């Protein structure tokens, strides 16, 4: 039986890109990658840098493990995966330190924690170990976007309501909201509100997409 060469962006492959945005979102449905989603979303800039860094590691790690998938003995697969991820994160960390030093200082331990970002391990175990490199790359990319949009959404509200700025640009001041009596909501900058914000995002997501509701 000859294998049909699947189109690069066939329907099945496009689903890999679109599922993690809503139906199979890594943060709100798969419950992975929560730690970083809460900790570095105080401002938009570090959140975006984190989303891009984790996304790069996700895609490249998926491809590497998928290429090696037939060579890794099952007993040591966790250690092999960790080594691949750790090496990539060291690379990303050095690049961040070289090009955006101030943001890398803000991210501090959380760049290292990309290693234990459950999304990367989770997708390696669930997908890359059993699928071809191109599909694994698409899966990594889809999950990177799914993770990224939640990070940006939470950071957007936290920075806007908590500090009145977006990317450091004083939006609320220019809109004249301070004159109308708005005061920066100090609560939004604190950790607990990140949890409540994600809870509300989950609420809205499941209200719009009824089949995601837990029984």
């Amino acid at each position, binding site marked *: 039986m000859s294998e049909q060469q699947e189109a690069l962006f066939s329907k099945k492959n496009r689903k890999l890109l679109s599922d993690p945005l809503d139906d199979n979102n890594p943060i*709100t449905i798969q*419950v*992975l*990658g*929560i*730690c970083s989603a*809460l*900790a570095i979303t105080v401002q938009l800039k570090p959140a975006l840098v984190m989303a891009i860094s984790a996304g790069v590691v996700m895609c490249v790690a998926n491809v590497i493990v998928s290429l090696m998938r037939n060579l890794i003995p099952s007993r040591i697969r*966790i*250690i092999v995966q*960790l*080594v691949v991820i*750790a*090496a990539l*994160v*060291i690379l990303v*960390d*050095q690049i961040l330190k070289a090009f955006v030093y101030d943001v890398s200082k803000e991210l*501090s*331990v959380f760049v*290292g*924690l990309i*290693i*234990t*970002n*459950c999304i990367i*391990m989770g997708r390696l175990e669930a997908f890359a170990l059993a699928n071809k490199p191109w599909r694994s790359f698409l899966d990594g990319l889809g999950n990177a976007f799914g993770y990224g949009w939640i990070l940006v959404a939470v950071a957007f509200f936290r920075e806007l309501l908590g500090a009145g700025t977006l990317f450091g640009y004083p939006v609320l001041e220019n809109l004249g909201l301070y004159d109308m009596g708005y005061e920066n909501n100090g609560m939004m900058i*604190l*950790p*607990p*509100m*990140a*949890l*409540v914000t*994600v*809870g*509300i995002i*989950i*609420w*809205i*997501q*499941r*209200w719009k997409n009824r089949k995601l*509701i*837990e029984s």
Partner: protein
Amino acid sequence: MQDLVNIFIKSIFIDNMVFAYFLGMCSYLAVSKTVKTSVGMGAAVIFVLCVTVPTNYLLENYVLKEGALVWLGEGYENVDLSFLSFIMFIAVIASMVQLVEMIIEKFSPALYGSLGIFLPLIAVNCAILGGSLFMQERSDDITNITEATVFGLGSGIGWFLAIVGIAAIREKIRYSKVPAPLRGLGITFIITGLMGIAFMSFMGIKL
């Protein structure tokens, strides 16, 4: 002694792994459906932290940081291997978890059976790597191996408190009228947020 007590109390309440730094959230949310599994998971996390933080402390101070290799010879003063921290710490953690798994399997097969898949998953629990990375970052507070062990113990106990607390609450709200879209994950996030606010009351305490 005073220092040890300070570090202990600080790492349980003020620098709580879950509520102040959001580490270990994935297993915290996934394992907290019943109190029984939470206690098992929490105990395993305490044990692994107690073992890995001092080991990584030794690694950090005698191999990794700048000038650490001085015991090998005078010429190694300027060698700074700290860029290898991530990979060395995670290697130590993965091997310790494998060791713990083998020991538990040998000495208490019942416990091994009840922990199941969660034991190997502790290797990727960000609270464990986070504990070691914080120990590395706070090198002025943590100056010897006893302090490192107490820090590990305290961080573990803080995580344990958090997960058992949320599990107890989740067991109770199963019989409450939570709106359908919030059921399960959504309400857990919001409750954790509220618990975080409660723990913030410890924030201003200066020890």
